[in-house]
């Protein structure tokens, strides 16, 4: 249910919607307004365009943004290295990042380029869910980049203070993982098929 609908329902039932002005909410609604003349994209608009957070209501998006950390990276700055301990999940708010994987286990090497992730894409969800996570790839800022990060302590706090929001977020993250698992399984099946074909040819 959206925040506006929640308030309208409350008014409809004759309940109080709070007896004083909540400045942060007003500020948030001002920023979130589609008529806002501000050129800068607000967090609200940003998250509303991220598909996996579609099920979040306006108020939930507002609450969710409170747990995020804004981190700024310069071009070619390493965000994390393959093998580092992982604790966080990042959304690309602005800019782009390159992902590299090192198959030779040579720490000094950056590895092979895998993919470029752009604005509104995300990475690092395993770091948030696994207890002892090691980053499986190196991520480098391809240009000046702003990331919004959610870390383990933030998720713990979210589950404690806003359990419904936390559960919703975890469900969505689990869905991403499930999709990736499905994709991986399909790729493995395809690769096995190719190996079999090659074996038969040989």
């Amino acid at each position, binding site marked *: 249910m959206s925040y506006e609908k929640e308030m309208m329902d409350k008014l409809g039932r004759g309940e109080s919607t*709070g007896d*004083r002005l*909540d400045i942060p909410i007003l500020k948030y609604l001002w920023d979130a307004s589609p008529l806002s003349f501000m050129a800068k994209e607000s967090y609200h608009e940003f998250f509303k365009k991220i598909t996996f957070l579609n099920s979040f209501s306006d108020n939930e998006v507002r609450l969710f943004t409170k747990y995020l*950390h*804004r*981190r700024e*990276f*310069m071009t*070619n*700055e*390493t*965000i*994390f*290295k393959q*093998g*580092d*301990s*992982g*604790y*966080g999940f990042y959304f690309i708010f602005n800019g782009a990042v390159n992902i590299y994987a090192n198959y030779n286990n040579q*720490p000094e090497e950056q590895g092979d380029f895998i993919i470029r992730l752009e604005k509104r894409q995300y990475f690092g969800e395993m770091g948030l869910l696994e207890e002892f996570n*090691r980053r499986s790839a190196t991520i480098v800022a391809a240009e000046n980049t702003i990331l919004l*990060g959610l*870390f*383990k*302590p933030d998720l713990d*706090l979210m589950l*404690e*203070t*806003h359990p419904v929001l936390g559960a919703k977020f975890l469900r969505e993250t689990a869905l991403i993982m499930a999709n990736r698992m499905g994709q991986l399984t399909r790729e493995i099946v395809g690769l096995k098929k190719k190996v079999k074909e090659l074996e038969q040819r040989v």
Partner: protein
Amino acid sequence: MTRNQKIKLYLFMFLFSASIVFAIMFPRLTLPFGFAYIIYLMCKPFTIKLTTGSRRQRLIYFSLMMTGIVFLCFPLFATLYNVDTDFSQFSNQLPEIQKMLQDKFFAYKVMVFEKFGIRLNLDPVNFLMAKLESQGTIFLSHFPDFISTIFEWLLLVPLFLYFFFMESRRFSRNFLEAVPNPIFEKSYVLFSQFNTKFGEYIIAKFIEATILGTLVTLGLFLIGFPYPFILGFIAGVTNILPYIGPVIGVIPAIFVGMLSKDPNVTVLSMLVIYALANLIDMILVFPLLVSKIVNLHPILVVVSIIIGSQLGGIVGMIVIIPFIAFFKLLFKEIYKDLSVHL
């Protein structure tokens, strides 16, 4: 790492070290600040539950602080009254104790002379009393400072506490924004883990000390042992120190038992009470409350307490344990990273 990143990192390290030096240079400000922070960490789990979803946070925090002051101060003053009564009784008995000690030492001197022919020219009882008197004078000369410190703390601790309740999240976010990227993730997670562990440890030790102090007071009161409140209070406070605390806590009671002329007062019954209270603590309270929070080897705990006492006296002995647990965690993380990258 680029040149800019390096500058940012070194600047941050410099400012961080400078703030630690500042904290050490101004203990009158740092100590109440630290004390308020400990109380804040202790209250955090409850305040999160109370304030979630509420827009009247300011009122909740204020009411919570007021309730805390009333509920904490009332038993404290009640106990202090009893402790004060016990202490005045002890002061009144002091000349009597001095005379008894002198008699006992004289008998001992005679015994040594008769058996070994050695004349002891020592007078430890008078030396002890003179020392006690001089220490008392020093304490009295510093008493105005002590009172002014108490009033300072009474003003500063609630003020800092209110600041922590209201602003800590915003403050920590602003601070975290300044942390350079290469160390951000790890330092944030470790700092959060330390905060959680520290808060849990202090709360657990506080509950443990209260339970043990109450058990000792009750036991001593039931067997009619003198000064049950002051001895229970000492047992509770010293119990905060693991392993060494229970031993230190029983020493005053042994002295009181040995000096008492009452035939009903026996050191053995008192020792049974202490042993029972510590047994309940070891079997029930400690495993349930504390052991899971700080998973340290007993030898490491004892060594840490000795280091803590050298660095910061009694406060150092108490707070060193969660710090050591944190450093253990930190070294583990650094070692894990090194083993991956080297």
